[in-house]
């Protein structure tokens, strides 16, 4: 038997793990394309119900608007939008501007972090909510696992906004993205963000894409890359 090198063994294991994860996801629920640039990164070309997505970023980085736009896309199929907003800072007119129906929006303002986790679990498990959005601080591994199981049980998408200081912590989220702000050129139609993939279960890891959030269509699209200049090389000598 051919002896595998250490690197080959790791790659083989990764491939098998990825296959298992994909099979688990396929058996779990339906996948819905978000029609955004995120679909290109996801293994099934869309978000499977029961997925938890972490978006890391600080104030002004654009993680919140990116997550909200993904949530708005997923809410097209109906269901409630639950925002667990312990700091009472969520601004509903912005959600309404993205086409989210406030008739089915529930603002939950828990008094403490324990109540936040309880409310999150209830909302994710309820089968009433399609999307649950929350700012998440430090969270115990076991509590996070409960949230993951609740999301799977309720076929709900969990969108968690977290500060970049938590990106090294272990997580049960299926998709972990770091949102970096990018300078928008004057010609840009909207805001530009760099999406760094920390982890996508069953998908590629450690890749970065640049997206543009267009205000006119509320779209999240890939920034087209310019082709390399075709100036012929000059040979010297």
């Amino acid at each position, binding site marked *: 038997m051919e002896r595998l090198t250490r690197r080959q063994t790791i790659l083989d294991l990764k491939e098998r793990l990825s296959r298992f994860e994909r099979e688990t996801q396929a058996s779990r629920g339906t996948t819905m394309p978000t029609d955004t640039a995120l679909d290109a990164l996801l293994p099934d070309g869309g978000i499977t119900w029961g997925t938890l997505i972490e978006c890391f970023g600080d104030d002004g980085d654009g993680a*919140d608007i990116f997550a909200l736009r993904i949530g708005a896309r997923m809410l097209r199929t109906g269901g409630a939008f639950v925002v667990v907003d312990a700091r009472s800072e969520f601004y*509903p*007119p912005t959600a309404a*501007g993205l086409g989210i129906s406030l008739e089915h929006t529930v603002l939950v303002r*828990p*008094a403490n972090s324990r109540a936040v986790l309880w409310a999150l679990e209830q909302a994710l498990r309820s089968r009433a909510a399609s999307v649950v959005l929350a700012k998440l601080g430090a969270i115990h591994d076991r509590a996070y696992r409960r949230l993951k199981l609740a999301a799977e049980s309720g076929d709900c998408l969990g969108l968690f906004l977290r500060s970049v200081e938590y990106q090294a912590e272990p997580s049960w989220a299926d998709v972990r993205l770091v949102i970096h702000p990018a300078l928008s050129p004057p010609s840009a139609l909207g805001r530009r963000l760099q999406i760094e993939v920390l982890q996508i279960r069953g998908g590629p890891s450690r890749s970065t894409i640049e997206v543009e959030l267009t205000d006119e269509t509320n779209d999240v699209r890939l920034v087209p890359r310019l082709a390399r200049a075709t100036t012929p090389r000059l040979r010297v000598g």
Partner: protein
Amino acid sequence: MPEETRNHHTGTASIRNPQSAIRNSPTLLVLYTPARSGQFAVVACSADAAHYGIRPGMALAEAKALAAGIDVEYVLHDSKADRQSLERLAEMCLNFSPWVAIEDVDEPASLFLDISGTIWGFDSEEELAQCVADYFPRLGYHVQIAVADTIGAAWALAHAEKSEAGSRKSEVRSETVRRAESSRPAVGVLRTTVCNSSQSAIRNPQSAIHNLHSLDVTALRLPEATVRLLYQFDIRRIGQLLALPRESLPSRFGPEVQLRLDQALGRTPEILTPIQPSEPVEACSPFDPPISDRRWIEASLEELLSRILNQLKPRQLGVQRLHCTLCQTVGSPISIAIGLLQPSASDSHLRELLHLHLERVQTNAEISEIVLHAEVVRPLEFHQEQLYRDPGAERSRYFPALIERLSNRLGNVAVLRPRLLADAQPEHAFHCSPWVVEEKLDSNTAPPVLLPRPVCLHKKPVAIAVMSIVPEGPPLRFEWEERDHVVCHYWGPERIETGWWRGEDIQRDYYWVETTMGRRFWIFRRRQDETWFLHG
């Protein structure tokens, strides 16, 4: 008609808009309602407000102009709340008669009590009527009462004030009632907070029918158009109508005149449906000796809940508000209120909601009695099963359960429903109200314009230090959270000038700024003092 077979009715004219909040307010009140072409019209006003010339029917803007500089409370007229209050009053009137009905019109303001055979505890009908008249001021209402043989006559006499034009000087009417009625000529009696027992009016029951002749035709409950037509022919009194050939009335003035006349005179029967008093749905369990074990308390509650649901299920009713009282041997009883978004008769669901509350209840002593009371019960809603799976509809089915679970554990004020408001000031551009408490909002506001806004807005704008080269110019760099941010792009200004009527004159120039790091912020300059704030 023999005395023992006569049906006497007491017509009680209650106040217009008897909502408790309005009744108990000490300020001048004006009730308004949406009118044509987006305008608002005054529906009723208090007697004090009428002193300033405010009259029902006038435009709200006109009323505001008349009462400029005066502290007047303008309240949106809520006919549904009126009806509910009148229903409560009707239930209270069951103290005087087992047959109480509410006037059968779109916006009722009168109650009818059948007092046949109920005066045995009183010397006369007048004494019974006086008793009713004394009862209402204690609740904060002025009423007009009439005793007559027919419903129509009772109504006519109770509402006769405007039609008689002061001709019946002998009747018991207080000056306060007169002043109040001047603001609402039909039935309005306002300014309830200053009432006393002498301020109700009673009509003489003995001379009811023959007194009808001298009453105005408006006392016949006729449509306004018919009354106008009668006035055109100078027919102002019921007696004048009665003098006309009976067979000519329908062809000349429509069939309703004849019908109302006959009803008032007892020639045609009039049927009103009496209210069905709601039985209290409650169950209690006393303990001797008292208990303290939480498992026993929970088991008792479950048993009480089953008893309540067994009462409701045959009637296809569900619980919408449940109240639980745990009586302690020492100290005050513990009250638990459970609110539901829609009525439910699900044992497991209600039990779960009870447990959510019980988890947080701290008992200081043993429990001597548990009382469970279904405060609000409503008909259950039934939905047909879908043949094909509809994910959206399936999720809506679970929605009430989610709201109820969250509200009962975190409190109603923590589970909110956002609504947009057409207000330029960002902090006031939406309103949040608890999901399980119905709150009526003014639905006539224009749809708000949705402009680019941040996802998170600071509750209070954060003051920042900003450098700007030209006065009133765009920001170039600013300092926030001990870091220096250099502005690379900016969009704006979006000038907002609003809020002066709230006592705070808002004058802001908002800018979206993008820093050299690509971060975006929503900042504004307060134009009054040129200070800058970060808002989102």
